[in-house]
Structures are given as structure tokens and as C-alpha cells.
């Protein structure tokens, strides 16, 4: 499935959680993964999400690295 992280498309397995999309995005932009658990993630309407939150096709999340 395809989701968006910071408006960038990320292909990921069906059933992935926020942490999986985030991890793949961070590796792709070559950012530091060591503090990944502390990153604040928001949905497209600006609500906080925890990193176990499930994602579905077309979801869009944002994170400040």
C-alpha cells in the first residue's frame, strides 16, 4: 500500500503501523533513527498519533525530524 509521510509517498506492506512508515521514510531521507520512538507524529488533520497506530492505503502523516 502507499501512504504519505511528510507528503512523500512511501510504499509499505499492508497492515503497517505508523512506526513502519516512519522507519522507512527516515531511512530513505537518511535521517537519524536513534530517537525514532520519541518523534511526534500527526495525522492529516493534525491529531497526535502513537507509533502503533494502524495505517491504511492513502493515509498521510507528518513528523518533525
Amino acid at each position: 500500500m502507499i501512504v504519505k509521510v511528510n507528503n512523500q509517498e512511501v510504499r509499505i506492506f499492508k497492515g503497517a503501523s505508523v512506526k513502519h512508515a516512519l522507519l522507512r521514510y527516515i531511512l530513505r531521507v537518511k535521517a537519524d533513527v536513534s530517537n525514532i520512538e520519541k518523534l511526534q507524529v500527526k495525522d492529516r488533520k493534525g491529531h497526535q498519533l502513537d507509533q502503533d497506530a494502524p495505517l491504511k492505503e492513502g493515509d498521510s502523516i507528518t513528523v518533525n525530524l
Partner: protein
Amino acid sequence: MKKILFFFAILSFLTIGCSQKKGNNYVRPSYKTDIHIVSANDMHGAIENMPMLAAAVDSLRAIDKSLLVLSAGDNRTGNPLNDLYTIPAFPMVALMNYIGFDASTFGNHEFDSDQPLLEKLINLSNFPYICANTFADTELGIQNIPYKFFDVKGVKVCVLGVVQLGIQGTPDSNPDHLKGIRFESVEETINKYLYLRDQCDVFILLSHIGYEDDCAMAEKFPQFDLIVGGHTHTQIEGGELHNGVLITQNVNKLQRVTHTILTVENGKVTGKRAENIEIATSKNKNPFVAQIVEKFSDNPELQRVLAVATAPFSTYEELGLLMCDALKEMTHSEIGFTNMGGVRYDTHPKGDFTVDDVLRLDPFGNGVVIMELTPKEIEDMLIACFYADRNRFPYTSGIKCDIEYTANKNNEPEKVVKLTLTTDDGQPLDPNKKYKVAGNAYAVTVSDSPREDEGREFGSISSDLLIKFLTEKKQINYSGRRCLTEHIVK
């Protein structure tokens, strides 16, 4: 004439007391009162936060003993102390019973329990599971109800429950656990039960369908006063009004719950407000619940012997192979793989292999992903995993890997220059075939390489598969087994 009308008005008032008649034969109360609701969602086995939840509920019950306590599902999955208890997931049920939950809906993770376990957990619960779009075959004994009326200070509150359905039309869980259970679309289900609106004063949707779908349902069905939501772990500040329907939800594991107050006047909700209550960081604990949690945390199940190792494990590779075999066999795949960093110890003595040993070996609660891959895609994925896992090649089952690396100045692998994959009996992989590959979700995620099939969640965590694998095998011997042959080339 006026006297006659006045007489009938008085008569009807005396007949129905402080009530009004509306819809069917339901008589609505005409006084004003506040209904207090505490709602949790996606608790995911966070038994450690139940003493604080109990204290919060105690405080609110001191204000209003008619407090309704609701769970929007996913009570289990996410904490081995809960999920691997002697009766799996029983600690949460026991704690919810003690706290006095009035109802829960099913979350998709309630179906992480297989059918007999789900039946047992429901029977052990003092509260009903309200879920209108789930229909279990009678012989399974799974007793959920579509809706329930609660009499709260004379106000009739109706709670209708629904669970999320994925693209397959079933909740996102292990498909084996859904056999014999039928699911209907959320929207059709709600339509079917809209008549309940006329039979109650307060109409609540207890929903495990996720925030965006809650918003969509609020737009389509303004008949609801409140949607108590779950599934997407969305932190809503207090509550949000959508088309006049108040929607609530919190992030997972009882970091917060929502306290909703509905003002009901003349049988109609005239005021809605909601606030979040911090749970995980609260210092207030119910001491008795804390004692029960302590008891559950001392879980004898962790010492259960799953299998006997007839020879010691002496390398990461041997233990990695064990994990890969479990991934492969328990998902009926042809190949299993795991990143080396996912194998957390490198020796295990001859003798008992316990649940605790599994959880120390594989402590991350990683899901499992199944993919259909060509040999080239497998190669690319394994190489991507090597680079993502600090230049350590992943372990595999079902195939053997011969890898040539260049070395850095410390003579450690730096770059893969050649990778040859063969089957366990030394044959090359069929380039025209797609192989069914199972990997833990972390390894699959970090292995960012081109492939047509990104895969799908299997519906179990990798440590659970290892527990099942060892239970089936009874005896194991991985001494001297290898999957990797590594060469440094100049």
C-alpha cells in the same frame, strides 16, 4: 373547551409523570440531568496503567455513581504479561471486571484470540461485548450483542457497537481466527439499527472503525449523540463535533481516557462536552488494582517449557535459524528471514526452552509480513537488510546465502559484491518462480528494495509464532546449523 384541554393536560401529566411520549411507545423523561461517561480505547493489554484508570474511575464515581465506563475495543495484544497469561488476555478482562466496565466493543485485535479463547474471555467478562456487525456461528459460542440499553438515572442510553473491516471485509487479524465468523459492513449495520434512535434518549456508537470513518459516520448519521471511537489511536483533544455528533478517541495503552458529559433535558441531549484524563502519568493509583496487577506481572506462564534443546545453541546464527524456521513453517512459507539485530542473545544451554527464553530472544513484539518475491527481489531485499542492519547479513531459512564482501580497514564487511542463493539442498532458485517469503515486520521495513509485492501483515507477532513452533517441535537441535557462508574479498 379550554377547561377540557386543561383537564387532559393534567391527566396526561399524572399518567406519565415527569415523562414525554415519543416514537414507538417509549416514554421519555422530562427532567434535566448529566450523563457521565468514561471511555477508553486501544488499551492493548496495558495492565500497568489499570491502577491509575481505576483511581480515575473511582473519583468520577464519587461524583456520579451512575458513571458509564466503555471500551472501544483492542483491549488485548501488546503486552506479553497480558497476552501470554495462563489464560491469554485474561488479566485485562479481570481488571476491567474489577473496575466495572459497562461494555466493550470488539476491536480487530480481540480476534487475535482464537475462537475458543474469545468465547472463554467473553464468558469471563462481567460486561457485554457490543458489536452489531459481527455474527459468529452458534457452535463457536461467541456471545456478542448488537446493542444494549442502559438506564442511567432514568435516562435511556442505547449503545450500538461496530468493529473495523479491512479491505478483505474482515477485521485486521489472523484469518484463521475469523473462521466461522461473518462480518457485515459498518454503514449497512448502522442503517439497520437506526430505529433505536426513537427508543432512547441518548444514542451512542461504540466504534472500533477509526477516526476518519467515525467522521464519515457522523456526517451520514447525525442521529448519534456521541461516537466513542477507537482503532486509529487518534488523540482528540476532548471531543470534536462533526455534524452535531461528538467524537472522542485517545492514543493507545491508556495514556489517556475521555470523560464525556452529556446534558439530557426532556429526553434530548442539549449539551455535550468532553475532556481528556491523563492516566499513564497519573500518580493516583487504586491500591487493590495495583496489587492485582503485581500478581499478574508475576506470570508463571513465562516459565512454561515449550521444547527441549537436545544440544546447546552457541551462535547468533543458530538462534537466528530457529527464528527463521518458525517464521517459515508457521506461515506455510518457503523462506523465512530475520535481521541479525533481531536475535537478542547468542547462546542457550542444552535443556528447557521456555516462554521467557523466547521473549528474551525476540522481545520486540514485531509483526510478521508475507510476500511473494522473485529470486532477484529476494536478493535485493537481503542486501538492503544487510546495509540497514549495520552491515550484518540477515539469517534465512529455506535458502542458503553465499556472500562475498569487500572489507573496511578493520576487515569488517563493507559492501556486498556477490550474493548466491541456493535452496537447502544446494540447487539454484528458479528465476521464473515467485517464492513465499516471511519476515519480521522490522526486517521487511528496513529492507527497502524494489519489489512488486510489499507484502501483508500475517496477523501474529513473531514471538507468538516461535512459541507455537517450539510447542509443536517438542525437541530441537540447531548445533552446527548454518545458513550463511561469508567471504571477504580483496
